[in-house]
């Protein structure tokens, strides 16, 4: 049944490879190039929507409730976006149970039901193709990695850890680069001694280092360094990639402050700090640096050409104007076996063809005993 999707998956893989080749092309940005790319994206998105409508039962019901079928959709922006809540409530996948070899959970706050994104080797292959093509465009390969999360063995359902593991393998870095561990309560913390040793080695050897982590893992590391009164100058060419929120796991810092602290304690300048936006429900990621940096100097997130973001008004569901705030909606062709259109609960400001993250809608999932609004 899903063989149609399998065939389509190879088409998406090809498309990603072609787009990746074009990323550095000087034609990119030309109106004619863009219009061609739009037509291509639209064609693939509509085809994928038809397949998902046919093969993903839970999604089909949602579309039918909205009275939208492939027959009345002519543009990718009309494809019904599944709320992230649907990943919690339903099995939003085209895979039969025996094909699901992996599941990624969202890392919501305690007490929330996590999202579940089911994968197989086939879908993971597309995920990895998408991840690597866009990541390589932003970060040159480096063998010297420090990853501030636990390894896959300790966090098998984390798409973020999987992402770091894929990059680690791609960069042929040592498996001992995961510096995170699980605390007694299963929350993520750091092996501070190993982290300190890894940073020391980098400083001593003069070999640039690439550090990956969540915002809260960086705060944990920086707090540790501050407590020990340690400050290092990582070799030139070192980079930091930081992602995600805090989820009450550490004190929360505004981005600019976090980045200033990273520069201060680790010696990595802002130009070498990359932010990532990703979620377990997607197969592609957005980054906020690269050669498409806005003219205003503000850092805006961009998805790769095989995924598109729209910022929609929460009142009307229609795309907002440039500079306005709304909810982020993503159309990701690499989400072949789940749903390509995902409605997030993240607020963002539309900035050209990119976006600026604002935060998450509060308490959208109804749950337990909280008297926040009474």
């Amino acid at each position, binding site marked *: 049944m899903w063989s149609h999707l399998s065939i389509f998956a190879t088409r998406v893989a090809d498309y990603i490879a072609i787009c990746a080749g074009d990323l550095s092309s000087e034609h990119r940005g030309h109106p004619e190039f863009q219009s061609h790319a739009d037509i291509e994206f639209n064609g693939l998105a509509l085809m994928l929507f038809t397949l998902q409508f046919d093969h993903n039962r839970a999604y089909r019901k*949602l579309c039918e409730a909205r009275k939208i079928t492939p027959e009345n959709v002519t543009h990718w922006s009309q494809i019904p976006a599944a709320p992230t*809540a649907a990943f919690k*409530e339903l099995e939003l996948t085209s895979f039969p149970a025996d094909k699901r070899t992996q599941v990624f959970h969202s890392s919501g706050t305690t007490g929330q039901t996590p999202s579940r994104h089911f994968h197989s080797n086939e879908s993971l292959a597309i995920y990895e193709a998408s991840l690597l093509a866009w990541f390589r465009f932003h970060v040159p390969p480096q063998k010297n990695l420090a990853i501030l999360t636990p390894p896959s063995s300790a966090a098998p359902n984390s798409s973020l850890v999987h992402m770091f593991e894929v990059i680690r393998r791609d960069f042929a870095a040592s498996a001992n680069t995961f510096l995170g561990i699980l605390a007694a309560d299963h929350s993520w913390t750091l092996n501070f001694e190993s982290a300190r040793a890894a940073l020391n080695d980098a400083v001593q050897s003069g070999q640039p280092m690439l550090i990956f982590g969540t915002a809260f893992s960086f705060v944990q590391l920086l707090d540790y360094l501050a407590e020990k009164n340690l400050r290092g100058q990582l070799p030139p060419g070192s980079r930091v990639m930081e992602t995600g929120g805090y989820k009450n796991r550490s004190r929360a810092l505004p981005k600019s402050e976090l980045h200033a602290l990273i520069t201060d304690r680790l010696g990595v300048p802002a130009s070498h700090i990359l932010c990532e936006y990703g979620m377990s429900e997607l197969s592609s990621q957005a980054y906020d640096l690269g050669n498409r940096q806005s003219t205003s100097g503000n850092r805006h997130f961009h998805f790769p050409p095989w995924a598109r973001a729209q910022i929609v008004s929460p009142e*009307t569901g229609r795309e907002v104007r440039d500079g306005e705030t709304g909810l982020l909606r993503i159309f990701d062709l690499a989400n072949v076996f789940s749903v390509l259109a995902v409605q997030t609960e993240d607020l963002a400001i539309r900035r050209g063809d990119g976006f600026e993250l604002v935060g998450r809608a*509060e308490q959208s999932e109804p749950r337990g005993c909280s*008297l926040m*609004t009474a």
Partner: protein
Amino acid sequence: MNLPNYFLADLPPEAALTAAMVTDACQTLKRNRESYLANQSTQSRVEILCGVAENWLQADYPFRKMVLEQGPAATGFSRATLANGLDNFFRQFTLENFNALLVQELGHARRLDEIVANSAEEKISRGAMARGPEFLAHIAAGNLPNPTLMSIALGVLTRSAQFVKCASGASFIPRLFAHSLYDAEPKLGACLEIAEWRGGRGDIEKALFEEADCVTATGSDETLAAIRHHVPERTRLLGYGHRLSFGYVAGDALSSFQARKTVVRAASDIVAWNQLGCLSPHVIYVEHGGAVAAEQFAEMLAEELARREETEPRGEVTTETAATIASRRGFYEVRAAHSPDTRFWHSENSTAWTVVYEADARFQLSCLNRFIYVKGASDLKAVLAGADAFRGKVSTVGIAAGEEKSRALAAQLAAWGVTRICPLGQMQNPPLTWRHDGRPALGDLVTWVDWER
């Protein structure tokens, strides 16, 4: 209409408040009270309050006009919502109602004026009088204005100098009410201060609490805990934490003749102050066995809310609030697409109103702003079992039921710990004699003097 700078809240936003300014203001208020307000009779205070309320009910009253014209931008409430809210509130201000309040809470209408005895006290040869605080400070919550106006009115009755600290962005209506008092009686207005700052300004709050002999505070548990920490031991603190409310429709209020009226009442409670008060319902429970099923009730309620939107629109909300509503709608859309136990109706192209029907009778917190749950329930017992996590936090239950049934429901709710039971449709209109969260609002302010003859 330009308002004179009588109050700190009248100052331009760039004028930074300091602890010294607050201390200075408090001392002036006390002096003004001593030389005027302390010597006024209860009767004269009631007359002033009723006179001002009468003005507020007049269409051409400048302060009212100002609230209705500038209020939508300043508060987010639509003109119609503001007009209804103000009317329902100020209509309560009558000589009879104030008299009833004084007798209820203090046992005698002249208790604040001199040592008096009611007939029960006569029999045991005793008399008593009650004295209000010299200086009363209010820390007001920001969601809706009328609790703040009520606090001010009670402080006028007790002839206290008053300092009202409004939540940031929430001083507009209290400020205009204060101006209306000033306009009616400048010397009374001179015993009142209105200021606005973002909570947590320890230095100014400390200065304020130092001067007060009684503090009332409304807000979240965290806000109250923080205030409790800063109020000196000698100062009385009356804290009103957040509460929540729901509606209950009994089967006998759902005859085909009654059902429509009941739906209209439920809608009134949802529309009033956009459901933002502690007395606004999160859920309307509909008892099984009536002529109209819960699901059908929900559909009728959706139609009524759509109609109300025409005459009494919700008004604008922030993008964050709209995003919360939109995301929560997304959640129920998913459920509704997959299970007949959930259905939902909502305004098109806006987040103005949402009705979610769920067969599951467990209590659910709404994100408010006219987002209501309708749930079926076999009886009140099942409802209370499903709301157990919120026991002790429920303020009001609005009920629609016949006379006899109402009595039985009230007894059950009282035993469970609900502090106010009222007819559906009246949830946001507590009478002047309402005991706030089960406490005598006026009675808690005073200190008694007993005279045993």
